[in-house]
């Protein structure tokens, strides 16, 4: 459409369009250059120097920060936690989200109310979520332990965020609680656009409900499925807020991820150069995955498989 209009429009119009276009784009370019591209360029520079936050002319150290990163066992530990976070924190909301969306799709009345309730946690601030779930996990009075005692599982009651083996999964459960509503709403809107004639036809042909889901419904919502997958995967690499608020990487580094480790290095230990290098690693890891999944998603959409 753009090409056609360009060749048809007279030169005067094209010039007027270009002039207004540049004027309208100017503010966003200033904001982008000043508060995104410039600090991003600085991040690359910081990764090549040993900056403590005070010295105006920090010594150039080449790739020392990168070498240090690959030999730092804490980085590998944090990366491992990121991987757990990505796998569990992606699979659970996707699976639960799809199941709940299917239920809401089937329900005849009141679906809108449930949708609002399930989506609510997604719009709440991370700080508030972290505080309240901290109470739920409280070792003495926490609702979770109260519940376990009430149903006779008192032996399982424990300090959920204080146990190194459990803390990461406790925070993950909170993140799943907060994030699943997003998947529900998106899957539901994709399901509403599924071709029901195909579903009915397959029912008449004798397909059971599992076969209908797998062969008829899922292929139609595949592009949306991949889209949610991309978002949660990329979010998994850059997870920071909820862990920072609930455990700050503790107890004894058990919940440390790349984000919290980079923050500690930069703002607590004043290793600005090294902290920035760690933050860059997260970008380097997540961007190719996002691009790859996006390509795949677009190819599926262009094939006309739905959504």
């Amino acid at each position: 459409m753009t090409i056609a209009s360009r060749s048809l429009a007279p030169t005067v119009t094209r010039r007027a369009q270009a002039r207004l276009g540049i004027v309208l784009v100017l503010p966003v370019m200033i904001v982008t250059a000043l508060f995104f591209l410039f600090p991003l360029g600085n991040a690359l520079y910081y990764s090549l120097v040993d900056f403590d936050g005070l010295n105006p002319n920090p010594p150039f150290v080449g790739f020392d920060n990168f070498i240090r990163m690959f030999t730092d066992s804490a980085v590998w530990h944090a990366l491992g936690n990121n991987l757990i976070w990505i796998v569990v924190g992606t699979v659970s909301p996707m699976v639960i989200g799809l199941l709940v969306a299917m239920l809401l799709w089937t329900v005849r009345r009141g679906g809108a109310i449930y949708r609002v309730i399930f989506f609510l946690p997604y719009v709440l601030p991370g700080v508030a979520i972290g505080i309240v779930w901290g109470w739920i996990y409280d070792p003495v009075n926490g609702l979770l332990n109260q519940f376990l005692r009430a149903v006779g599982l008192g032996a399982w009651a424990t300090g959920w965020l204080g146990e190194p083996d459990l803390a990461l999964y406790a925070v993950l459960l909170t993140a799943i609680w907060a994030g699943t509503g997003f998947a529900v709403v998106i899957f539901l809107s994709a399901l509403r656009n599924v071709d029901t004639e195909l579903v009915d036809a397959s029912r008449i042909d004798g397909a059971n409900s599992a076969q209908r889901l797998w062969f008829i419904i899922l292929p139609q919502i595949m592009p949306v499925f991949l889209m949610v997958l991309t978002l949660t995967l990329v979010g998994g690499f850059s997870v920071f807020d909820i862990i920072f608020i609930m455990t700050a990487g503790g107890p004894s580094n058990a919940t440390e991820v790349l984000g919290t480790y980079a923050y500690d290095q930069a703002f607590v230990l004043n290793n600005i150069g090294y902290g920035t290098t760690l933050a860059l690693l997260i970008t380097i890891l997540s961007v190719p995955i996002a691009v790859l999944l996006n390509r795949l998603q677009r190819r599926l959409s262009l094939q006309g498989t739905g959504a």
Partner: protein
Amino acid sequence: MMTAVAPDQRDLRITALADPESGTNLGPVPGPRRRPAQVALHVLLAAMAVFVLMPVILVISTTLKTPADVRVNPFGLFTSFSFENIVDAWTVGRFSDYVLNSFLLTVPSTAIVVVVSVMAGYAFARLPFRGRTFLFYLVILGLLVPFFTFMIPLYFQLRGMGLLDTLPGAILVLASTGTSFGTFFMRAFFSELPQELEQSARVDGASESQIFLRIMLPLVGSGIGALTVFTFLANWNNFLIPLLYLPSGDFRPLTAGLYMFTSGRSLDIGPLAAGTLITILPIIVLFIVLQRQVTQGFISGAVKG
């Protein structure tokens, strides 16, 4: 020559996805409804709804307890009643200041995002000029790079510019985190408008800026509404930017205030619950009143990739 035609194709999907009520079918069950199955379904969904709402119920319950009851039984549901915690948080806990600061940060930054994004979105969708695609990809890059990749250099940059610990500095940074998405979002809305509108206005002698302001702008009202609500929520909820770039605490908003409150006086559960309630109440009200726009904003936002 590469043009911006290819990305246009994915924008078409936004309309189909944008409206949670849209879609051609209402579910897979045909014919007369099966009553017992529907009842079981409602029981299951209601149980899930209680689980989802439990943390919010807990905040309300603890807020409304008497301080004595909070000390003994902080999380037992609705065992006593008083407004003391709210009063305490509002006055001693400085949450009245935090509410004001939240508005002072959120309202201007949201306005900047909306205005800047509408302008840029229109240009990127409908006003071809040399280098447009390249500039668009520069803006969109902001969607892929996590904020904390450059939050550390940004700290020193703001200090150098004299914007650290100032309201304008924090507002500009908050606004900058929203413009990538806003530009992408508004561009999709402007791309969908028919070419004929623009051409007939031009034949009638309208200038390019008149076409933008009088013809096209009024047609994307729903997009502007969704972007406003979405950005307001995101900026209201942001806690890292005020925490890092407003270190003295003079302009501390609710989220950062709440965070500082937990690390400072973690045993004051009553006022903390009240502070949490004060923080989430505007969000919940906004969400319930405008839930369609909110959902639309988030769903369309997901198509950004």
